[in-house]
């Protein structure tokens, strides 16, 4: 506090405490971080947490994401019994254990990935979503294992798999355990590919580092929400390395589409319709073989068309 401010009577001082009173009251209104519009929460929720003024797609939790995407009926969570541990007894300014329990309290989630077997427009699907508010959506052993269980469930029921990513990358506190989740999730996806089941990767803001450089980029179809930050290295790291200002829109969804990394950008409010439409086509040939009769019976070529007998 400067000498001048000290002279002002305390009743009319404008310090930090008073400023807070002017801010938006919690719970009722949200300020759009992009256009600063003050939005009524109920209205925002009805609009899938997309700003009605500027179309900014706000970050949403994994549960909200899956609730928006899946049919209400027939949901079953996968891998929730898998819980984090602290293999390295990692401690920086805080213990990793404490960081986990703090994140668990704040988010009501046990780790950063939620996987649900459910239905999309009445068709089976397994959907996974990262929770960015759980330690930056970072990928540790639990995220990797739940992802794999989700993939395995897809294989088991012959349904497509979709992931919504929102992550800063690997979870440093698990060091190599977390780095190797990149290999683990990518390897699991080879099985889906070989089984001919579609994998859709939907990248949301932000998708960086180890998550971007593994499961997120491996979709049969890669999609992104508008203006999501997606990349390998963080913009600050790149700026420090190349010592130049980064171009406008660098590492945003539109930039990625322009450079051929993603198939398309989908508005959150159209996500269900568009993904369902594409999946219906990708699954069409599978469905045909499923409903065609006698598929299990061996086809006897001789009966269908007798070979001509050559006589001399």
């Amino acid at each position, binding site marked *: 506090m400067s000498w001048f401010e000290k002279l002002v009577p305390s009743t009319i001082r404008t310090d930090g405490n008073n400023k807070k009173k002017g801010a938006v009251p919690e719970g009722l209104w949200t300020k759009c971080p992009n256009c600063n519009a003050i939005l009524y929460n109920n209205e925002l929720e009805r609009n899938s947490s997309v700003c009605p003024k500027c179309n900014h797609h706000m970050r949403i939790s994994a549960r909200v994401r899956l609730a928006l995407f899946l049919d209400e009926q027939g949901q079953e969570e996968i891998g929730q019994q898998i819980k984090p541990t602290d293999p390295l007894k990692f401690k*920086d300014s805080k213990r990793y254990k404490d960081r986990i329990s703090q994140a668990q309290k704040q988010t009501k989630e046990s780790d950063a990935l939620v996987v649900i077997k459910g239905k999309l427009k009445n068709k089976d699907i397994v959907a996974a979503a990262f929770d960015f508010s759980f330690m930056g959506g970072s990928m540790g052993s639990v995220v990797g294992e739940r992802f794999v269980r989700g993939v395995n469930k897809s294989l088991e029921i012959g349904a497509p798999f979709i992931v919504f990513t929102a992550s800063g990358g690997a979870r440093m506190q698990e060091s190599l355990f977390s780095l190797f989740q990149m290999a683990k999730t990518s390897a699991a996806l080879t099985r889906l590919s070989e089984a001919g089941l579609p994998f859709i990767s939907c990248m949301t803001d932000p998708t960086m580092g180890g998550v971007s450089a593994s499961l997120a980029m491996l979709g049969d179809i890669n999609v992104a929400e508008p203006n999501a930050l997606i990349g390998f290295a963080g913009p600050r790291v790149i700026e420090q390395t190349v010592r130049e200002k980064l171009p406008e829109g660098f590492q945003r969804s539109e930039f990625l589409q322009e450079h051929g990394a993603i198939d398309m950008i989908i508005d959150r409010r159209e996500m269900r319709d568009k993904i369902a439409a594409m999946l219906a086509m990708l699954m069409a040939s599978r469905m045909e073989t499923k409903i065609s009769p006698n598929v299990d019976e061996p086809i006897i070529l001789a009966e269908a068309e007798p070979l001509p007998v050559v006589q001399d």
Partner: protein
Amino acid sequence: MDLKFLDFEQPIAELEAKIRELRRVEFDNDINISDALEQLENKSKLLTESIFAELSDWQISQLSRHPGRPYTLDYIDLMFTDFHELHGDRAYADDPAIVCGLARLEGQPVMIIGHQKGRDTKEKIYRNFGMPRPEGYRKALRVMKMAERFGLPIICLIDTPGAYPGIGAEERGQSEAIARNLFEMARLKTPIICTVIGEGGSGGALAIGVGDRLLMLEYSTYSVISPEGCASILWKSAEKSQLAAEAMGITSDRIREQGFLDEMVREPVGGAHRDFQTTAMHLREALLRHLEQLRNEPVEQLLAHRYQRIMNFGAYIEEPGK
């Protein structure tokens, strides 16, 4: 202070300088001080042993990026014969930060893929300090698929600070290039042996690091982020790198404890940079042994084992049935 030596190597450097000086005196003046020299040499050896017996994780991290350490091309020179370098990703460019090629190891043809750092300033820049761009990873994938087609085992030598964080690298899909390698390496129908020879820097290392075996040289490191990077994020200060190195457990010893390592390859006393020959001999012996084991495995079994190995990565608790 000799810049070729790290700070904790300085006492060794000083003693060695003294020995060199005495040798010169002995030769120039035609006198015999071989007893004294022998004593000093013994002292130098003991000193090196005692310093290297209790290296901290941070010191090992510095050794793993020692400017005098042997790099991929040195190992190729010392361990392999008949090397033919293969260039380019067939799409955009050749990335000198990754070296690929055909060669023979004790007569057996193999495919070699390795990160390559530079020795002098000019070469360092040419090799981009061993930080690959997407085309480097795509070149690696191209030759890996070739190796699969022609039944050649793949030897990967890992030594990178990480994948290059640059504008062009992002534009050309650094993430996709790394991801694609992880995906394909998991199912490549030929044995893959990965060895960390220096610095195993995160995704940039892992992108040529998925396989049937993981070996590490004694003073190499492997981590999800550099100690400096980790310190600046979690401790908000790059000066806490020592703490970060210890917390993450990045040395071959610690990684063996974590259960990821198939073999730690011993380095000569004083580290690989003091004796390229011996280091290469140890590594060659280890590679041959693992190749022999993998060669006898039928492909189906090889792939099943690799898949299981990858699926076992991770530490979590599974709560009983719900």
